[in-house]
């Protein structure tokens, strides 16, 4: 069996399945909005770079942008549950298969990191009086990205789930430390520190016991990754969503228990539990926190309204994923829950969450005080308009899909 060929066939098969949807994404209005926002951002950024305010915290901004990209790693292995039976006899040769996953996993993310760094460069080099040289900075980021990716790959092989989690935290911590050292310290001093940090990390990675191929974990991760691609497509077009990563989040587990006890709230109960335990929750939370920070930072400006509405739109799109969560599940066809009840409960739930997000992201705009009151007021009105329009759009889209069926 040619394992390299098998990997390529699976990869081609997966992306061929995605390709038919790309046309819908391009046609979608949301894609146009993204394009418009990219153009608007470019215009704003160009003007901002020419008029950088004094004391601009460029090192913190660079750390905030570069550290996550330097540490973030994920891999597509295209492994299937049946591989535990049919590919396991080939385990001693699986390096041939998995090498492609590792290389591809590193290259694309490295390109993204370099793209963001080069976009940031004009701002960095103007705002930081002790800016590091471009070439050395790129070399540092490339090498640290490789190290971080290697660490993430070793985490997948670790036998103990606890060890894997611990090493993930370690990887995050040292990546943040490394980027901070590069940005704040003189080049030579930070070089020695980085070499020492990398050496200690590599040695530390050798300690935990590892599988030759961690079949179950790799298959689970692959399902999560494939699910993410489908959910991203789900923003634009109706695709089945599956393979969501589920986290127990015990601290939130009581959410939903207080819903009124009647059949009308049954589906909302399921939606609430789904929301708190899936990635939608963490993504929405991150968007709200980032949206609040940026709303505060840009408070009182028209650009701030754009930022606020952009984050409101992103939050709405993410919450819209909930609509497809269990729509085709087996029990929904069996249990006595009517389609009408399901529709109203899901849309109502999404609307309420969206409204809370809108309020939370709007509140920091009040920092502009009385001077920016009119802009803050406009932002609120437009925000309410966005969530109402998105609610209506989701409702009519749902009805249309039901009619088509």
């Amino acid at each position, binding site marked *: 069996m040619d394992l390299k060929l098998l990997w390529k066939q699976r990869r081609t098969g997966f992306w061929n399945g995605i390709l038919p949807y790309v046309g819908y994404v391009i046609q979608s209005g949301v894609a146009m909005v993204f394009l418009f926002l990219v153009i608007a951002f470019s215009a704003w950024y160009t003007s901002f770079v020419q008029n950088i305010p004094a004391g601009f915290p460029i090192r913190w901004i660079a750390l905030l942008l570069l550290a996550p990209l330097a540490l973030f790693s994920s891999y597509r292995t295209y492994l299937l549950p049946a591989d535990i039976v049919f590919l396991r006899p080939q385990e001693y040769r699986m390096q041939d298969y998995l090498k492609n996953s590792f290389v591809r996993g590193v290259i694309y993310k490295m390109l993204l990191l370099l793209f963001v760094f080069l976009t940031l460069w004009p701002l960095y080099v103007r705002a930081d009086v002790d800016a590091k040289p471009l070439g050395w900075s790129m070399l540092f980021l490339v090498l640290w990205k490789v190290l971080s990716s290697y660490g993430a790959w070793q985490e997948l092989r670790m036998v103990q789930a606890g060890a894997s989690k611990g090493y993930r935290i370690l990887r995050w911590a040292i990546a943040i430390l490394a980027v901070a050292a590069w940005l704040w310290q003189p080049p030579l001093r930070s070089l020695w520190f980085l070499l020492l940090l990398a050496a200690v990390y590599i040695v530390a990675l050798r300690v935990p016991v590892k599988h030759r191929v961690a079949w179950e974990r790799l298959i689970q991760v692959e399902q999560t990754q494939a699910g993410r691609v489908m959910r991203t497509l789900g923003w634009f077009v109706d695709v089945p969503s599956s393979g969501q990563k589920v986290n*127990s989040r015990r601290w939130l*587990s009581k959410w939903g228990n207080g819903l009124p006890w009647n059949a009308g709230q049954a589906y909302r*109960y*399921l939606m609430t*539990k*789904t929301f708190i*335990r899936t990635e939608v929750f963490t993504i929405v939370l991150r968007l709200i926190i980032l949206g609040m920070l940026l709303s505060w930072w840009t408070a009182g400006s028209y650009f701030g309204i754009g930022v606020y509405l952009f984050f409101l739109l992103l939050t709405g799109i993410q919450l819209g994923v909930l609509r497809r969560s269990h729509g085709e599940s087996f029990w929904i*066809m069996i*249990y*006595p829950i009517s389609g009408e009840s399901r529709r109203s409960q899901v849309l109502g739930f999404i609307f309420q969450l969206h409204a809370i997000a809108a309020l939370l992201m709007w509140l920091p705009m009040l920092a502009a005080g009385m001077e920016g009151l009119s802009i803050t007021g406009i932002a609120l009105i437009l925000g309410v308009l966005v969530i109402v329009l998105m609610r209506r759009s989701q409702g009519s889209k749902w009805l249309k899909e039901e009619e088509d069926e």
Partner: protein
Amino acid sequence: MENVQSPVLQISGLSGGYSAKRPVLHDVNLEVGRGEMVGLIGLNGAGKSTTMKHILGLMTPQQGEVRVMGKKRDEDAQIYQSAMAFVPESPELYDEMTVMEHLEFTARAYNVSEADFKQRTEKLLNLFRMNEKSTSLSTHLSKGMRQKVMIMCAFVAGPPLYIIDEPFLGLDPLGIRSLLDFMLEMKAAGSSILLSSHILSTIENYCDRFIVLHRGHVIAQGTLNELRTKFGEPDTPLEHMFYSLVQGRD
């Protein structure tokens, strides 16, 4: 006024399957009365699961009709679905919910009162020894435990009719005993059960009647004694009768 003698489940002249040209079921007629436990038996591919899918409303009959509590699904889907609970052959659980949350979701969907839910849940968790796992996510359960959750969900709903497909797969011996005892208890309380299983020696002593499906046809039905009178000797085990019934028909 509803006729108290009318069967809970009534299937008349049912033909159906995945393709109109090649139906899986052929003129199936069967009934399940109140407080009755009926065993639906047959080889793999005989049409047991297809029959159940028609009852559940997952498939539409090509001919004939299915009535639950005297109603067809297209007359009132809500009442129709509320009147039955299903235990599938393979556990189907939501990854995002714990054991207890599955039970609560089911109870809410079937409009079970909160007091009944609490009382039934306590009893079922004890009976199936699932107390310690009540706050575990379904992804952290073994296959047998997942099957127990399916069974508990059906019983927490408490409808008049249970459709149970191969419930013993993956259950430990204590689980099988608990399930059989509980089914008898539900039957005594007036519930009706249509049960499909290949473990004939187990269900032989529990079911009131048996329906033998073969290649989509009902080839025999009746009580154990009626089947013995027609197809065997006075003490012939169900398994032997079933074997001789289907053997000559392939």
